[in-house]
């Protein structure tokens, strides 16, 4: 991120969207903004991601779609989901969404994870996996409402998008942002990105030629918001964009049960253990009969 105000852009010629960084206020929380309305499906972000993370070439799959593979993979964090959506009037809309970790404010993966220090959430909002501490149980896979963490069966560790925490820590933008040629991807503080997204959504709604009355910003509050924001043509139907959940939820087993589990175990184990101990103290052993006669008076 450039810190010199002299490099902040005021306006751009021929730019399809709003100007990034206008009126920016620097804060702690960062966010990535994906404006799907300006994505052209070039997959530059996919390549940049593979390149920066030093992942080897992996086989792609073909399923009558332009999509590189079905889902993100343990060594393919970033995937554009292509969806050919049939409109009511018979027209076709090609919806493209860059899919990656959403870096939730309330991360389901982190809640589900039983391994100490395997998943960390930074104050800037990045949720990062620390594979050294990962035990390979894959609870995070079931904890994630976006189906993002992926298991590597060879190393028995789980991997996902890091939001380029290694780059962001050095004041750089994530690799995907740097590669995007259309201005579809933006990076900055959460407040800035939110403001930018809302501006863009309003622009889409109020367009004089092709107004999109349902255009809106995807920042699901059911998980406290995310640090990846989407501007969608139709915010009422996020499922169209490669199965983006309208109301992402973390399973109750990872919220309620997680907090009940420890006291439940202590209570159950101690009840029984103390129970038998005091049973011995109070009533003593049950001996085969006839036992040797008692010499003292019982108290």
């Amino acid at each position: 991120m450039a810190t010199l105000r002299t490099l902040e852009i005021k306006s751009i010629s021929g730019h399809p969207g709003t100007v990034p960084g206008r009126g920016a206020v620097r804060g702690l929380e960062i966010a990535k903004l994906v404006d799907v309305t300006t994505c052209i499906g070039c997959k530059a972000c996919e390549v940049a991601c593979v390149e920066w993370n030093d992942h080897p070439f992996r086989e792609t799959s073909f399923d009558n779609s332009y999509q590189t593979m079905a889902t993100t993979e343990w060594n393919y964090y970033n995937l554009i989901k292509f969806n050919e959506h049939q409109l009511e009037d018979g027209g076709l809309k090609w919806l493209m969404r860059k899919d990656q970790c959403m870096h939730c404010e309330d991360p389901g993966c982190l809640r589900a994870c039983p391994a100490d220090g395997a998943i960390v959430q930074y104050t800037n909002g990045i949720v990062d996996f620390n594979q050294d501490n990962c035990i390979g149980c894959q609870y995070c896979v079931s904890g994630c409402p976006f189906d993002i963490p992926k298991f590597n069966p060879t190393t028995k560790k789980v991997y996902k998008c890091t939001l380029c925490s290694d780059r962001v820590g050095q004041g750089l933008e994530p690799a995907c942002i740097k590669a995007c040629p259309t201005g579809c991807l933006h990076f900055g503080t959460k407040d800035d990105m939110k403001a930018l997204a809302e501006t863009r959504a309003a622009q889409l709604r109020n367009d004089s030629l092709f107004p999109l009355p349902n255009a809106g910003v995807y920042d699901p509050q059911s998980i406290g918001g995310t640090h990846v924001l989407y501007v969608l043509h139709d915010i009422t139907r996020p499922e169209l964009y490669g199965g983006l959940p309208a109301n992402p939820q973390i399973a109750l087993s990872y919220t309620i049960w997680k907090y009940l589990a420890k006291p439940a175990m202590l209570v159950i184990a101690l009840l029984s253990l103390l129970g038998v101990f005091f049973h011995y103290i109070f009533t003593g052993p049950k001996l085969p009969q006839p036992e040797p006669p008692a010499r003292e008076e019982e108290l």
Partner: protein
Amino acid sequence: MTTSVERFDEKARREFGKVGHTTVHEGELLRHPVYTRFLHWTAAISFFLALLSGLAIYSPWMFNWLTPLFGGGAMTRLLHPWFGLMFVIAYFFQFLNWLSRMIWTGSDSEWMRQLKDYVKGTHKLEPEYVGFFNGGQKLQFWEIIIGSGILLITGLCMWFPELFGRLAVAIGYVLHDISALIMLFGIWIHIYLSTVGQPGTLQSMTRGVVTRSWAWTHHPAWYRETTGRDPREDHQRAVERQTERRRVAEAWRSDRDSAARESERGPTDKS
């Protein structure tokens, strides 16, 4: 069905009896043959391995220190399902082995109604209808059967999440924990009653034998079944023998004491 299971069990007991053997001394009864003991300790060892490794995963906040026992967190996670599988397999054979003895009967329901007396130790002798296993043992047996069924199914869901899906893992995780906790609750009672709580019980799973007095005290109907004798009568006879022995011993002691007194007095008379 039942007959083929019985045939299998008999063959297994025979084969294991060739490898190991159980010596029954006078005054003792065979309770658990080698096969049963082998299954019991295989299940017991795998239970504790699964318990310790499981606790480390269940609540690392408290039990992270257990992971080095198994070679670190990742290794603990890798081994835990295998320990669990070992337990389930061992207990499956124990299930076949004990099925006929574990059938719930009316007398077990009666035993459960008298549970309060059992816990308080009101009666020195168990009721006469208590057979090879009492109601409590049967209850624990069936709890383990149902519990390990749940542990197996949910465990497989968590072992292979890619086959069973996210929801199965999220639900299975809770059921797995609860089943394990119920078994954890039961295990202390089992260990307590089979060792210090009821002395003479542990040797039934080590040497395989119990004393006759143990049998008529804790499992009178089984005593009747194996020896063909009346447990209450034999107990009464033992009580009488004990009283008789005490009488004889006291008589002998008083004889000896008076003899000693006389011999002390003897020399003083002479001098």
